[in-house]
């Protein structure tokens, strides 16, 4: 059995309380190539931060800061 290295929440490590939707460069890291939100099991985020992140991404999408869908691989 291969044992994967356990990922830790990046926001907890940085000590962030709030994830800002204006910071689109940071949000893009948690999107797939298509622009979908990366699940918790791959990003390693904790529950609270993943929920905040989802809200931030949805707000940024609405304001056209990040795309709803993108086919161009980054």
């Amino acid at each position, binding site marked *: 059995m291969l044992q994967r290295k356990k990922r830790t929440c990046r926001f907890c490590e940085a000590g962030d309380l*709030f994830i800002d939707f204006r910071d689109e460069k940071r949000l893009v890291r948690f999107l797939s190539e298509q622009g979908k939100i990366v699940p918790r099991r791959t990003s390693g985020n904790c529950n609270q931060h993943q929920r905040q992140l989802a809200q931030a991404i949805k707000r940024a999408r609405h304001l056209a800061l990040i795309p709803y869908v993108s086919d161009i691989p980054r």
Partner: protein
Amino acid sequence: MERLYNTIFIVDISQNPDESETVTSRIQQLIEDYGGIIKKMNRWGKRRLTYPIMKKSHGFYVEIEFTANSRLNIPTTLEGEYRINDRVLRHMTYIVDKKELIQREKNAGKIKRAEAITNAARSPVVESRENIQPASELPIDPEKDNQSVKE
């Protein structure tokens, strides 16, 4: 209950670049007329939209932060204005969370600390400049003084 709101809207400036100012002043006036107090105004400026909205590729982003009583229902009146105004491409109004305020304070503290470090690193250079300047000024100063006396 007194609340802190934040409203962001995108103005279409493809036809008239001054449109952003007229729309922002209108929104500002609306907030103040209905009893809100504007705390902060932030013009992000012209930005490229990541996807076209109403066939427009660029928009002017404006952010206004204001406090108001929740009974005044300012977000609803703003919503009505945004919907009628066809120059507004997108809008969003939300209640600012406590966590966001704490995070902002934290970030401000980080920036201050970074500035202090950079200033400390720069200070010897500034001192050396100051040392040079008086030396060059010294011979000129007495002449100036003499001139002023003569005059």
